[in-house]
């Protein structure tokens, strides 16, 4: 994914011509920041869903302590919030996997670059 080049190298007229390395750096920078933004977004979503879940679960426990009747609406809300937390956690996990993969490819690129520079220097 993310293979189009908005800048330089033959694809478009949208900017100053860049070297292929500069285009790769720009794209990698974009992808890493995008992964971070998504990870942060789901982290915030999980945080708020979990806080809501804690409050609703507390209310459910209180209502059960004071009555033998189950508050169906409250139970449904807790179940929904639990599902929300699972959703956020799974997406955060995927975002982190993607971020790791991108960081891994960045490390490989850097190792390749330093190897080529060393070869050119010798």
């Amino acid at each position, binding site marked *: *994914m*993310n293979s*189009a080049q*908005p800048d330089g190298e033959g694809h478009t007229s949208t*900017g100053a011509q860049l070297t292929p390395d500069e285009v790769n750096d*720009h794209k990698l920078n*974009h992808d890493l920041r995008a992964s971070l933004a998504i990870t*942060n977004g789901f982290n915030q*979503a999980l945080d708020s869903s979990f806080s809501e879940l804690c409050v609703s679960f507390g209310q459910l426990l209180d209502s059960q302590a004071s009555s033998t009747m189950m508050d169906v609406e409250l139970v449904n809300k807790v179940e929904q919030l639990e599902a929300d937390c699972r959703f956020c956690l799974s997406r955060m996990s995927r975002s982190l996997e993607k971020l790791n993969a991108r960081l891994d490819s960045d490390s490989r690129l850097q190792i390749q670059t330093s190897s080529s520079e060393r070869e050119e220097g010798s």
Partner: protein
Amino acid sequence: MSEAVLQHSEQSQPLDIVVVDDDQLTLDMVSWNLRRTQSAHRLFTDSEAAMAHLCESMPGMLVVDYYMPTINGIDFLSSLHAAVGFEGSSVYLCSAVFPRQRQIEQITALGASVLDKREICNRSALLGLLEAQQRVTGNK
């Protein structure tokens, strides 16, 4: 900005939003952030399907990702602008890195704006943007 305020303004004029991004996780994030609002949103990972849809119907707000597999966001917006124009729509190029000056000039010339990807991934920021958008739409 509160969600109640947003929903109140939506009652007068619901905002329709289209987001085009090849990253499904980004669309999941946007979808999550827009739930519990009354905005109608359509999300596309496929830029060609998005272009076909947009040529039929331009939304009140359009957000297009910068890096996509088959076309970049600026070229996508240029083609769309040539086909249907952006009148009546607020159009954003979304990027995790700030575009270069020349690209910003091109985006501005199309009547579009640059949007930081962090803004669509943050619920408060996105709802704030929608609220501001609805005020603009309401004032027209």
